[in-house]
Protein backbone atom coordinates (compact mmCIF):
# COMPACT_ATOMS: atom_id res chain seq x y z
CA UNK A 1 0.00 0.00 0.00
CA UNK A 2 2.60 2.49 1.06
CA UNK A 3 4.89 1.49 -1.76
CA UNK A 4 2.14 1.82 -4.32
CA UNK A 5 1.02 5.23 -3.05
CA UNK A 6 4.55 6.56 -2.97
CA UNK A 7 5.28 5.13 -6.44
CA UNK A 8 2.27 6.69 -8.10
CA UNK A 9 2.83 9.99 -6.34
CA UNK A 10 5.91 10.26 -8.56
CA UNK A 11 3.44 10.80 -11.41
CA UNK A 12 2.98 14.38 -10.28
CA UNK A 13 5.83 16.37 -11.87
CA UNK A 14 6.40 18.69 -8.91
CA UNK A 15 6.37 15.75 -6.49
CA UNK A 16 8.76 13.84 -8.72
CA UNK A 17 11.17 16.77 -8.80
CA UNK A 18 11.21 17.18 -5.03
CA UNK A 19 11.49 13.43 -4.37
CA UNK A 20 14.36 12.91 -6.81
CA UNK A 21 16.30 16.09 -6.06
CA UNK A 22 18.27 14.31 -3.38
CA UNK A 23 18.30 10.89 -5.05
CA UNK A 24 20.37 11.89 -8.10
CA UNK A 25 23.54 12.96 -6.27
CA UNK A 26 23.35 9.98 -3.89
CA UNK A 27 22.91 7.55 -6.77
CA UNK A 28 25.70 9.24 -8.72
CA UNK A 29 28.17 8.89 -5.87
CA UNK A 30 27.19 5.25 -5.28
CA UNK A 31 27.47 4.55 -8.99
CA UNK A 32 30.91 6.15 -9.14
CA UNK A 33 32.15 4.16 -6.13
CA UNK A 34 30.84 0.83 -7.47
CA UNK A 35 32.04 1.47 -11.01
CA UNK A 36 35.52 2.57 -10.06
CA UNK A 37 35.75 -0.19 -7.45
CA UNK A 38 34.52 -2.93 -9.77
CA UNK A 39 36.56 -1.88 -12.77
CA UNK A 40 39.79 -1.23 -10.86
CA UNK A 41 39.41 -4.54 -9.07
CA UNK A 42 38.69 -6.31 -12.31
CA UNK A 43 41.35 -4.57 -14.38
CA UNK A 44 44.26 -4.62 -11.94
CA UNK A 45 43.64 -7.38 -9.44
CA UNK A 46 42.23 -10.35 -11.27
CA UNK A 47 44.29 -13.05 -12.96
CA UNK A 48 44.11 -13.80 -16.67
CA UNK A 49 41.95 -16.64 -17.83
CA UNK A 50 44.03 -19.64 -18.89
CA UNK A 51 42.19 -19.79 -22.21
CA UNK A 52 41.24 -16.21 -23.00
CA UNK A 53 44.27 -14.50 -21.54
CA UNK A 54 43.77 -10.90 -20.48
CA UNK A 55 40.72 -10.45 -22.71
CA UNK A 56 38.64 -11.88 -19.90
CA UNK A 57 38.87 -8.42 -18.34
CA UNK A 58 36.46 -7.16 -20.99
CA UNK A 59 33.75 -9.10 -19.20
CA UNK A 60 33.49 -6.31 -16.60
CA UNK A 61 32.37 -3.91 -19.31
CA UNK A 62 30.58 -6.11 -21.80
CA UNK A 63 28.22 -8.02 -19.56
CA UNK A 64 26.94 -5.11 -17.44
CA UNK A 65 26.53 -2.92 -20.53
CA UNK A 66 24.59 -5.64 -22.34
CA UNK A 67 22.45 -6.12 -19.26
CA UNK A 68 21.57 -2.43 -19.09
CA UNK A 69 21.03 -2.21 -22.85
CA UNK A 70 18.19 -4.71 -22.55
CA UNK A 71 16.91 -3.38 -19.24
CA UNK A 72 16.86 0.10 -20.71
CA UNK A 73 14.49 -1.03 -23.43
CA UNK A 74 12.41 -2.94 -20.85
CA UNK A 75 12.16 0.20 -18.77
CA UNK A 76 11.02 2.16 -21.82
CA UNK A 77 8.39 -0.50 -22.50
CA UNK A 78 7.01 -0.38 -18.96
CA UNK A 79 7.06 3.42 -18.88
CA UNK A 80 5.33 3.56 -22.29
CA UNK A 81 2.61 1.22 -21.04
CA UNK A 82 2.09 3.33 -17.93
CA UNK A 83 1.77 6.42 -20.13
CA UNK A 84 -0.70 4.77 -22.49
CA UNK A 85 -2.84 3.33 -19.70
CA UNK A 86 -2.65 5.94 -16.94
CA UNK A 87 -1.57 9.06 -18.85
CA UNK A 88 1.16 10.02 -16.39
CA UNK A 89 3.38 12.52 -18.17
CA UNK A 90 6.41 11.77 -16.00
CA UNK A 91 6.30 8.18 -17.20
CA UNK A 92 6.46 9.20 -20.86
CA UNK A 93 9.34 11.56 -20.12
CA UNK A 94 11.19 8.85 -18.19
CA UNK A 95 10.90 6.61 -21.25
CA UNK A 96 12.35 9.41 -23.35
CA UNK A 97 15.21 9.94 -20.90
CA UNK A 98 16.03 6.21 -20.83
CA UNK A 99 16.62 6.02 -24.58
CA UNK A 100 19.98 7.86 -24.82
CA UNK A 101 21.31 5.91 -21.85
CA UNK A 102 20.11 2.65 -23.33
CA UNK A 103 21.59 3.39 -26.73
CA UNK A 104 24.98 4.20 -25.17
CA UNK A 105 24.90 0.93 -23.25
CA UNK A 106 24.06 -0.92 -26.46
CA UNK A 107 26.94 0.77 -28.23
CA UNK A 108 29.34 -0.17 -25.41
CA UNK A 109 28.11 -3.77 -25.52
CA UNK A 110 28.65 -3.81 -29.29
CA UNK A 111 32.13 -2.28 -29.22
CA UNK A 112 33.41 -4.37 -26.35
CA UNK A 113 31.83 -7.45 -27.92
CA UNK A 114 33.58 -6.77 -31.21
CA UNK A 115 36.93 -6.15 -29.51
CA UNK A 116 36.51 -9.31 -27.49
CA UNK A 117 35.63 -11.18 -30.65
CA UNK A 118 38.89 -10.25 -32.34
CA UNK A 119 41.17 -12.52 -30.27
CA UNK A 120 38.47 -15.12 -29.65
CA UNK A 121 37.06 -15.52 -33.14
CA UNK A 122 39.89 -13.98 -35.13
CA UNK A 123 37.70 -11.24 -36.51
CA UNK A 124 36.30 -7.99 -35.19
CA UNK A 125 32.83 -8.54 -36.41
CA UNK A 126 31.14 -11.88 -36.62
CA UNK A 127 27.44 -12.14 -37.37
CA UNK A 128 26.97 -13.96 -34.16
CA UNK A 129 23.28 -14.10 -33.10
CA UNK A 130 23.73 -12.20 -29.86
CA UNK A 131 25.91 -9.52 -31.33
CA UNK A 132 23.53 -9.21 -34.27
CA UNK A 133 20.58 -8.90 -31.90
CA UNK A 134 22.31 -6.04 -30.15
CA UNK A 135 22.93 -4.37 -33.49
CA UNK A 136 19.21 -4.62 -34.23
CA UNK A 137 18.41 -3.32 -30.75
CA UNK A 138 20.70 -0.38 -31.51
CA UNK A 139 18.66 0.38 -34.64
CA UNK A 140 15.43 0.19 -32.63
CA UNK A 141 16.82 2.72 -30.15
CA UNK A 142 17.83 5.04 -32.98
CA UNK A 143 14.36 4.89 -34.56
CA UNK A 144 12.68 5.50 -31.21
CA UNK A 145 14.85 8.55 -30.46
CA UNK A 146 14.43 9.90 -33.99
CA UNK A 147 10.65 9.72 -33.66
CA UNK A 148 10.78 11.63 -30.36
CA UNK A 149 12.97 14.27 -31.94
CA UNK A 150 10.83 14.64 -35.06
CA UNK A 151 7.48 15.51 -33.46
CA UNK A 152 6.84 18.99 -32.06
CA UNK A 153 3.84 18.37 -29.85
CA UNK A 154 5.10 16.53 -26.74
CA UNK A 155 1.91 14.57 -26.03
CA UNK A 156 1.61 13.42 -29.63
CA UNK A 157 5.27 12.40 -29.55
CA UNK A 158 4.72 10.51 -26.29
CA UNK A 159 1.75 8.63 -27.74
CA UNK A 160 3.43 7.69 -31.00
CA UNK A 161 6.75 6.67 -29.44
CA UNK A 162 4.87 4.54 -26.92
CA UNK A 163 3.03 2.71 -29.68
CA UNK A 164 6.33 2.28 -31.53
CA UNK A 165 7.97 0.94 -28.36
CA UNK A 166 5.20 -1.63 -27.90
CA UNK A 167 5.28 -2.82 -31.49
CA UNK A 168 9.08 -2.61 -31.52
CA UNK A 169 9.30 -4.84 -28.45
CA UNK A 170 7.30 -7.56 -30.16
CA UNK A 171 9.50 -7.32 -33.23
CA UNK A 172 12.69 -7.19 -31.15
CA UNK A 173 11.81 -10.51 -29.55
CA UNK A 174 10.82 -11.89 -32.93
CA UNK A 175 14.13 -10.70 -34.40
CA UNK A 176 16.01 -12.40 -31.58
CA UNK A 177 14.48 -15.75 -32.53
CA UNK A 178 14.81 -15.10 -36.23
CA UNK A 179 18.50 -14.27 -35.84
CA UNK A 180 19.04 -17.43 -33.80
CA UNK A 181 17.38 -19.40 -36.53
CA UNK A 182 19.49 -17.68 -39.16
CA UNK A 183 22.88 -18.34 -37.61
CA UNK A 184 23.56 -20.79 -34.83
CA UNK A 185 26.42 -18.69 -33.55
CA UNK A 186 29.92 -18.54 -32.15
CA UNK A 187 29.12 -16.99 -28.80
CA UNK A 188 30.02 -19.03 -25.80
CA UNK A 189 26.59 -18.65 -24.32
CA UNK A 190 27.74 -20.18 -21.09
CA UNK A 191 30.51 -17.77 -20.12
CA UNK A 192 28.08 -14.89 -20.15
CA UNK A 193 25.44 -16.42 -17.97
CA UNK A 194 25.22 -15.24 -14.41
CA UNK A 195 25.04 -18.73 -13.12
CA UNK A 196 28.17 -18.73 -10.98
CA UNK A 197 28.17 -22.44 -10.27
CA UNK A 198 28.87 -23.39 -13.82
CA UNK A 199 31.02 -20.93 -15.56
CA UNK A 200 32.59 -17.99 -13.91
CA UNK A 201 35.14 -18.57 -11.25
CA UNK A 202 34.87 -16.55 -8.04
CA UNK A 203 37.88 -14.39 -8.84
CA UNK A 204 36.02 -13.01 -11.85
CA UNK A 205 32.56 -13.17 -10.33
CA UNK A 206 32.89 -10.72 -7.44
CA UNK A 207 34.36 -7.79 -9.34
CA UNK A 208 31.79 -8.50 -12.07
CA UNK A 209 28.97 -8.18 -9.53
CA UNK A 210 30.38 -4.90 -8.28
CA UNK A 211 30.75 -3.57 -11.79
CA UNK A 212 27.19 -4.61 -12.61
CA UNK A 213 25.91 -2.78 -9.55
CA UNK A 214 27.86 0.24 -10.77
CA UNK A 215 26.28 0.12 -14.21
CA UNK A 216 22.80 -0.30 -12.73
CA UNK A 217 23.28 2.64 -10.38
CA UNK A 218 24.77 4.75 -13.15
CA UNK A 219 21.81 3.91 -15.36
CA UNK A 220 19.36 4.93 -12.62
CA UNK A 221 21.21 8.15 -11.89
CA UNK A 222 21.39 9.13 -15.55
CA UNK A 223 17.74 8.26 -16.24
CA UNK A 224 16.54 10.17 -13.19
CA UNK A 225 18.69 13.18 -14.08
CA UNK A 226 17.49 12.95 -17.67
CA UNK A 227 13.86 12.72 -16.57
CA UNK A 228 14.33 15.82 -14.41
CA UNK A 229 15.71 17.63 -17.43
CA UNK A 230 12.83 16.43 -19.63
CA UNK A 231 10.30 17.62 -17.04
CA UNK A 232 11.94 21.04 -17.00
CA UNK A 233 12.02 21.11 -20.79
CA UNK A 234 8.36 20.15 -20.88
CA UNK A 235 7.45 22.93 -18.45
CA UNK A 236 9.52 25.30 -20.57
CA UNK A 237 7.60 24.19 -23.65
CA UNK A 238 4.27 24.85 -21.91
CA UNK A 239 5.42 28.29 -20.75
CA UNK A 240 6.70 29.27 -24.20
CA UNK A 241 3.43 28.21 -25.84
CA UNK A 242 1.53 30.45 -23.48
CA UNK A 243 3.92 33.34 -23.93
CA UNK A 244 3.26 33.10 -27.64
CA UNK A 245 -0.48 33.07 -26.99
CA UNK A 246 -0.55 36.09 -24.70
Amino acid at each position, binding site marked *: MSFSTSFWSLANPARFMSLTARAVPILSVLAGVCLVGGLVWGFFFTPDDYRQGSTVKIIYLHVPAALMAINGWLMMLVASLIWLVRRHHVSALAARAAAPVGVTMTLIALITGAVWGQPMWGTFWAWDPRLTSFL*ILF*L*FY*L*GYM*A*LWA*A*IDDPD*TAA*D*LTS*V*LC*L*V*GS*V*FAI*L*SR*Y*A*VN*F*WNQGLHQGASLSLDREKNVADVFYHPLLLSMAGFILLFLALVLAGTRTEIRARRLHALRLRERMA
Partner: protein
Amino acid sequence: MTRIFLRDLRLGVRAGGGFGLGLAFFLIVVVLVPFGIGPETARLGPVAPGILWIGALLACLLSLDRVFALDREDGALDLLATAPVPLEGVALAKAAAHWITTGLPLCLAAPALAVLLALPWPGHLWLAVSLLAGTPALSLIGAFGAALTVGLRRGGLLLSLLVLPLYVPTLIFGADVARRGAEGLSPLVPLALLGAVSLGCLAILPFATSAALRVNLR
Protein backbone atom coordinates in the same frame (compact mmCIF):
# COMPACT_ATOMS: atom_id res chain seq x y z
CA MET B 1 -13.62 -1.34 -46.23
CA THR B 2 -13.81 -3.06 -49.59
CA ARG B 3 -14.67 0.31 -51.07
CA ILE B 4 -11.59 1.95 -49.62
CA PHE B 5 -9.53 -0.93 -50.93
CA LEU B 6 -11.01 -0.63 -54.43
CA ARG B 7 -10.66 3.15 -54.46
CA ASP B 8 -6.98 2.90 -53.49
CA LEU B 9 -6.41 0.35 -56.24
CA ARG B 10 -8.05 2.63 -58.76
CA LEU B 11 -6.01 5.61 -57.55
CA GLY B 12 -2.89 3.50 -57.67
CA VAL B 13 -3.22 2.55 -61.32
CA ARG B 14 -4.39 5.98 -62.52
CA ALA B 15 -1.86 8.48 -63.82
CA GLY B 16 0.43 9.70 -61.06
CA GLY B 17 -0.56 6.85 -58.80
CA GLY B 18 2.96 5.49 -58.74
CA PHE B 19 1.98 2.02 -59.89
CA GLY B 20 4.94 0.28 -61.50
CA LEU B 21 7.52 2.56 -59.89
CA GLY B 22 8.38 -0.07 -57.30
CA LEU B 23 8.59 -2.70 -59.99
CA ALA B 24 10.92 -0.55 -62.11
CA PHE B 25 13.07 0.10 -59.05
CA PHE B 26 13.26 -3.64 -58.37
CA LEU B 27 14.32 -4.27 -61.97
CA ILE B 28 17.07 -1.65 -61.77
CA VAL B 29 18.43 -3.01 -58.50
CA VAL B 30 18.59 -6.51 -59.96
CA VAL B 31 20.32 -5.22 -63.10
CA LEU B 32 22.86 -3.24 -61.06
CA VAL B 33 23.88 -6.12 -58.78
CA PRO B 34 26.02 -8.02 -61.34
CA PHE B 35 27.91 -4.79 -62.08
CA GLY B 36 28.79 -4.66 -58.42
CA ILE B 37 29.76 -8.27 -57.80
CA GLY B 38 30.73 -9.65 -61.19
CA PRO B 39 29.01 -11.64 -63.93
CA GLU B 40 30.06 -15.19 -63.00
CA THR B 41 27.13 -17.52 -62.49
CA ALA B 42 28.96 -19.25 -59.67
CA ARG B 43 29.14 -16.00 -57.78
CA LEU B 44 25.66 -14.66 -58.55
CA GLY B 45 23.73 -17.84 -57.86
CA PRO B 46 24.44 -18.11 -54.11
CA VAL B 47 23.62 -14.46 -53.36
CA ALA B 48 20.60 -14.26 -55.67
CA PRO B 49 17.90 -15.14 -53.07
CA GLY B 50 19.18 -12.50 -50.66
CA ILE B 51 19.60 -9.82 -53.32
CA LEU B 52 16.13 -10.46 -54.71
CA TRP B 53 14.58 -10.29 -51.27
CA ILE B 54 16.39 -7.07 -50.35
CA GLY B 55 15.45 -5.56 -53.71
CA ALA B 56 11.80 -6.43 -53.14
CA LEU B 57 11.95 -5.03 -49.63
CA LEU B 58 13.41 -1.72 -50.78
CA ALA B 59 10.91 -1.51 -53.62
CA CYS B 60 8.14 -1.93 -51.03
CA LEU B 61 9.64 0.79 -48.91
CA LEU B 62 9.67 3.21 -51.83
CA SER B 63 5.91 3.66 -52.03
CA LEU B 64 5.12 3.54 -48.31
CA ASP B 65 5.05 7.25 -47.63
CA ARG B 66 2.10 7.57 -49.99
CA VAL B 67 -0.10 5.16 -48.05
CA PHE B 68 -1.57 7.76 -45.72
CA ALA B 69 0.21 11.01 -46.60
CA LEU B 70 -1.84 11.68 -49.75
CA ASP B 71 -5.11 11.19 -47.89
CA ARG B 72 -3.83 13.37 -45.11
CA GLU B 73 -2.91 16.21 -47.49
CA ASP B 74 -6.26 16.39 -49.24
CA GLY B 75 -8.29 15.93 -46.07
CA ALA B 76 -9.63 12.49 -46.97
CA LEU B 77 -8.11 10.97 -43.82
CA ASP B 78 -10.21 13.26 -41.60
CA LEU B 79 -13.30 12.27 -43.53
CA LEU B 80 -12.45 8.57 -43.37
CA ALA B 81 -11.99 8.88 -39.61
CA THR B 82 -15.46 10.41 -39.25
CA ALA B 83 -17.09 7.96 -41.67
CA PRO B 84 -18.98 4.96 -40.27
CA VAL B 85 -16.07 2.53 -40.77
CA PRO B 86 -13.63 1.46 -38.07
CA LEU B 87 -10.21 3.07 -38.49
CA GLU B 88 -8.67 -0.38 -38.09
CA GLY B 89 -10.55 -1.37 -41.23
CA VAL B 90 -9.22 1.69 -43.04
CA ALA B 91 -5.68 0.72 -42.02
CA LEU B 92 -6.17 -2.84 -43.19
CA ALA B 93 -7.75 -1.82 -46.49
CA LYS B 94 -4.91 0.59 -47.22
CA ALA B 95 -2.25 -1.99 -46.40
CA ALA B 96 -4.06 -4.47 -48.65
CA ALA B 97 -4.20 -1.98 -51.51
CA HIS B 98 -0.50 -1.26 -51.05
CA TRP B 99 0.20 -4.97 -51.24
CA ILE B 100 -1.81 -5.44 -54.44
CA THR B 101 -0.17 -2.47 -56.17
CA THR B 102 3.38 -3.14 -54.91
CA GLY B 103 3.86 -6.53 -53.29
CA LEU B 104 1.95 -8.70 -55.73
CA PRO B 105 3.67 -7.35 -58.88
CA LEU B 106 7.00 -7.97 -57.16
CA CYS B 107 6.04 -11.58 -56.46
CA LEU B 108 5.13 -12.10 -60.09
CA ALA B 109 8.19 -10.35 -61.50
CA ALA B 110 10.74 -11.87 -59.12
CA PRO B 111 10.99 -15.36 -60.74
CA ALA B 112 11.63 -13.73 -64.11
CA LEU B 113 14.27 -11.40 -62.68
CA ALA B 114 15.82 -14.33 -60.82
CA VAL B 115 16.95 -15.61 -64.21
CA LEU B 116 19.16 -12.54 -64.52
CA LEU B 117 20.88 -13.46 -61.27
CA ALA B 118 21.34 -17.12 -62.20
CA LEU B 119 19.19 -18.46 -59.39
CA PRO B 120 19.26 -22.28 -59.61
CA TRP B 121 15.99 -23.69 -60.92
CA PRO B 122 13.69 -24.79 -58.06
CA GLY B 123 14.58 -21.51 -56.38
CA HIS B 124 12.35 -19.54 -58.76
CA LEU B 125 9.27 -21.25 -57.48
CA TRP B 126 10.23 -20.89 -53.83
CA LEU B 127 11.24 -17.29 -54.32
CA ALA B 128 7.76 -16.48 -55.62
CA VAL B 129 6.16 -18.47 -52.80
CA SER B 130 8.29 -16.77 -50.16
CA LEU B 131 7.49 -13.32 -51.52
CA LEU B 132 3.82 -14.21 -51.70
CA ALA B 133 3.90 -15.21 -48.03
CA GLY B 134 6.17 -12.41 -46.87
CA THR B 135 5.21 -9.24 -48.73
CA PRO B 136 1.86 -8.90 -46.89
CA ALA B 137 3.90 -8.50 -43.70
CA LEU B 138 6.04 -5.86 -45.42
CA SER B 139 2.93 -3.88 -46.43
CA LEU B 140 1.33 -4.16 -42.97
CA ILE B 141 4.51 -3.12 -41.15
CA GLY B 142 5.02 -0.34 -43.67
CA ALA B 143 1.50 0.97 -43.18
CA PHE B 144 2.20 1.12 -39.45
CA GLY B 145 5.36 3.15 -40.06
CA ALA B 146 3.48 5.40 -42.48
CA ALA B 147 0.80 6.01 -39.84
CA LEU B 148 3.44 7.01 -37.28
CA THR B 149 5.03 9.56 -39.62
CA VAL B 150 1.91 10.83 -41.41
CA GLY B 151 1.90 14.13 -39.51
CA LEU B 152 5.49 15.00 -40.41
CA ARG B 153 6.34 17.11 -43.39
CA ARG B 154 9.53 15.25 -44.29
CA GLY B 155 8.78 11.89 -42.82
CA GLY B 156 10.20 9.76 -45.63
CA LEU B 157 13.65 9.21 -44.19
CA LEU B 158 12.35 8.70 -40.68
CA LEU B 159 9.86 6.20 -42.07
CA SER B 160 12.73 4.10 -43.45
CA LEU B 161 14.59 4.29 -40.14
CA LEU B 162 11.52 3.09 -38.26
CA VAL B 163 10.39 0.41 -40.68
CA LEU B 164 13.63 -1.26 -41.78
CA PRO B 165 14.54 -2.75 -38.35
CA LEU B 166 10.99 -4.12 -38.16
CA TYR B 167 11.57 -5.87 -41.48
CA VAL B 168 14.40 -8.04 -40.09
CA PRO B 169 12.41 -11.19 -39.18
CA THR B 170 10.48 -11.16 -42.44
CA LEU B 171 13.67 -10.78 -44.44
CA ILE B 172 15.47 -13.54 -42.57
CA PHE B 173 12.70 -16.11 -42.99
CA GLY B 174 11.81 -15.01 -46.53
CA ALA B 175 15.35 -15.11 -47.90
CA ASP B 176 15.93 -18.43 -46.13
CA VAL B 177 12.93 -20.00 -47.88
CA ALA B 178 14.30 -18.87 -51.25
CA ARG B 179 17.86 -19.98 -50.38
CA ARG B 180 16.85 -23.43 -49.19
CA GLY B 181 14.62 -23.80 -52.23
CA ALA B 182 17.51 -22.94 -54.53
CA GLU B 183 19.82 -25.38 -52.74
CA GLY B 184 17.29 -28.18 -53.01
CA LEU B 185 16.61 -28.34 -49.28
CA SER B 186 13.15 -28.37 -47.79
CA PRO B 187 12.05 -24.78 -47.18
CA LEU B 188 8.95 -25.71 -45.21
CA VAL B 189 10.19 -24.68 -41.75
CA PRO B 190 11.13 -21.07 -42.62
CA LEU B 191 8.05 -20.90 -44.83
CA ALA B 192 5.83 -21.78 -41.89
CA LEU B 193 7.61 -19.18 -39.75
CA LEU B 194 7.27 -16.59 -42.52
CA GLY B 195 3.56 -17.31 -42.77
CA ALA B 196 3.29 -16.97 -39.00
CA VAL B 197 4.99 -13.55 -39.14
CA SER B 198 2.56 -12.39 -41.83
CA LEU B 199 -0.48 -13.67 -39.95
CA GLY B 200 0.76 -12.15 -36.70
CA CYS B 201 1.22 -8.80 -38.42
CA LEU B 202 -2.28 -9.12 -39.85
CA ALA B 203 -3.67 -9.77 -36.39
CA ILE B 204 -2.02 -6.96 -34.41
CA LEU B 205 -0.71 -4.23 -36.69
CA PRO B 206 -4.03 -2.78 -37.95
CA PHE B 207 -4.81 -1.89 -34.33
CA ALA B 208 -1.43 -0.22 -33.78
CA THR B 209 -1.78 1.57 -37.12
CA SER B 210 -5.20 2.95 -36.31
CA ALA B 211 -4.02 4.02 -32.85
CA ALA B 212 -1.17 5.95 -34.45
CA LEU B 213 -3.52 7.49 -37.02
CA ARG B 214 -5.94 8.61 -34.34
CA VAL B 215 -3.13 10.32 -32.43
CA ASN B 216 -1.95 12.05 -35.57
CA LEU B 217 -5.42 13.31 -36.49
CA ARG B 218 -5.92 14.89 -33.08
